[in-house]
């Protein structure tokens, strides 16, 4: 039975206290690791949301606002972009392609986005991956809709199902475009981005369902245009919400951005997604740094709990120390015994904490994805995680040095006197 074994057996003898201490450490470690995992996932989710798009153009507002509503489907546009301006920019020789976006309606809590076929052709996410269809194809007919993977799975939609689009973006809407139902013709594969939560229709469809609407309310009976009658009309939109631009040559991106920002006819703004994303990340980063600090303090509290438990046990264990001393144990053995104890408690806490983290992530993953769109890849511990966990154990050993030093002093002053 070496010192390690003695420390282990001694802890087993005090297993209820030890288990509580380990639990406290485990919970704090799980919190820290969980926050770290979430923020890595969130950061990756951010970065993966859009790629291959050189510029996003919308009405002049804030850079973040434009990014949020055009890419993340969060918030609303303050103004629209006129069809004329869009056409002018789209036809510019340096522009390779554009993706128009028209937002403002929803379907059972999911945003509806009007666009055209170029969207499926040119939009990229997660470092250049293309959208793919699990089943079906892009919209073709006026009343065709393509739904994201999550829309389909959450609402149980299959190809051919009819859906009705609601006016506005509230999850419960009373104004429904129920006179012009759509039919699902395509279901997209999962991307882990807001695409999954979007219902896509053509720009013309957006125009069509609003033909008989004025100022956000349905026209009076008699003024309504039927679904078939709408087909006969000119459905070219007067305006769109925003559009994405792919350049012929990346070199021209900044020139084009400046030109759009200086555009005289209309107050437009062009942003570079990568720049806006990192700005957004900086903003959100403050919150998760705060979370990390809180989690770090919880870990500190867990370790202080361990310190308290060890210090409390010291007095009742002076007898144990005196017995070991009488058998020839040197003060360094006593010191090692207590440091080992701190090491065992912290290591067990860290291991349990890691297990707890993965159990929780596993359990929470579907909820996180559904509610917040955070897609947690089941990943192993990163080097950084291991560094943090190692740091916790080192901190515990350093803290353990205090009771160890106390016990060391006891052994010198107590001699072989056994205190009861």
């Amino acid at each position, binding site marked *: 039975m070496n010192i390690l074994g003695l420390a282990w057996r*001694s802890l087993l*003898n005090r297993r209820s206290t030890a288990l509580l201490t380990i639990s406290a450490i485990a919970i704090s470690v799980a919190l820290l690791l969980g926050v770290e995992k979430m923020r890595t996932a969130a950061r990756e989710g951010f970065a993966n949301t859009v790629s291959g798009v050189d510029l996003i153009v919308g009405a002049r507002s804030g850079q973040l606002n434009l990014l949020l509503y055009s890419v993340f489907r969060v918030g609303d546009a303050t103004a629209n972009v006129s069809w004329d301006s869009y056409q002018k920019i789209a036809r510019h020789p340096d522009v390779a392609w554009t993706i128009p976006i028209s937002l403002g309606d929803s379907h059972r809590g999911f945003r509806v986005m009007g666009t055209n076929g170029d969207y499926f052709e040119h939009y990229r996410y997660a470092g250049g991956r293309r959208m793919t269809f699990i089943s079906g194809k892009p919209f073709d007919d006026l009343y065709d809709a393509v739904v994201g993977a999550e829309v389909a799975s959450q609402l149980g939609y299959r190809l051919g199902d009819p859906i009705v689009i609601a006016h506005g973006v509230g999850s419960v809407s009373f104004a429904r475009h129920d006179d012009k139902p759509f039919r699902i013709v395509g279901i997209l594969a999962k991307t882990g981005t807001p695409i999954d939560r979007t219902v896509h229709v053509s720009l013309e469809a957006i125009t069509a369902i609003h033909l008989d609407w004025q100022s956000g309310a349905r026209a009076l009976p008699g003024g309504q245009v039927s679904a078939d009658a709408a087909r006969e009309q000119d459905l070219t939109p007067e305006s769109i919400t925003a559009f994405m631009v792919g350049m012929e040559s990346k070199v021209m991106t900044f020139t084009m951005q400046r030109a759009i920002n200086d555009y005289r006819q209309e107050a437009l703004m062009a942003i570079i997604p990568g720049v806006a994303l990192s700005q957004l990340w900086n903003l959100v980063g403050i919150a998760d740094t705060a979370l990390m600090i809180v989690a770090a303090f919880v870990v500190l509290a867990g370790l202080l709990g361990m310190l308290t438990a060890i210090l409390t046990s010291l007095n009742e264990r002076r007898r*144990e120390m005196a017995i*070991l001393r009488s*058998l020839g144990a*040197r*003060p360094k053995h006593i010191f090692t015994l207590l440091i080992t104890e701190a090491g065992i408690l912290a290591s067990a806490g860290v291991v349990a904490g890691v297990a707890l983290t993965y159990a929780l992530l596993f359990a929470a993953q579907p909820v996180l994805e559904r509610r917040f769109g955070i897609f947690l890849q089941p990943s192993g511990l990163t080097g950084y995680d291991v560094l943090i966990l190692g740091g916790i154990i080192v901190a515990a050993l350093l803290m353990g040095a205090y009771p160890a030093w106390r016990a060391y002093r006891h052994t010198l002053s107590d001699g*072989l006197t056994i205190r009861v």
Partner: protein
Amino acid sequence: MRPDLAKLAIEARALRYAWPGKPLTIDLPRLDIARGERVFLKGPSGSGKSTLLGLLGGVLSPQSGSVRVLGTDLAPLSGAARDRFRGDNIGFIFQMFNLLPYLGVLENVLLPLQFSAARAARIAGGDPVNEARRLLAAIGLGSDDLLQRPVTELSIGQQQRVAAARALLGSPGIIVADEPTSALDHDSRENFLSLLMSECRAQGSTLLFVSHDTSLGYLFDRTLSLLDINEVRS
């Protein structure tokens, strides 16, 4: 009887010790105990017994004077060297609570070997577990059933026997017993003591038995009174 100086197990000269900030506890001009001798050291509580044992065991360092144990002067040794020396050469039995509650009977008996390679090396046949079982049996704890029990479930008398087997394991030159029988009734006391003594004799260990109860003194080669030899008067 004047013991032969070359064959001394314990030899203390002009030994003085005071706990920090306290008056002198030990002022011992001379103490000689021969190798193989069985000495009864009597002294009421508070007479400095524990302090004297701490000095002999090398846990405490005297302010002045010298202690030689089995021919080795403890004074020049470092703290760690004295600890090692104690582990190699002295087996202690205390009044009570000798055992680590979280170890089994055999593990408690074998514990000294963790700190002393010399004691492990002295075990005949080189099988510590066998030797531990033999000692336990010799001291009256033969049954396997007892060996399986947690030490906390043993009676005080049984615990003291385990402690005695532990002190004897690896034949240390000196066995120091500090009131080991005070928690036992009179009959088990004599029985315990005679088993301890015969085992000490068998392996040639010196026995220093400390107690305030003089009724057992007749079993020993010699009886010393700490009140007589310690010049500190409380």
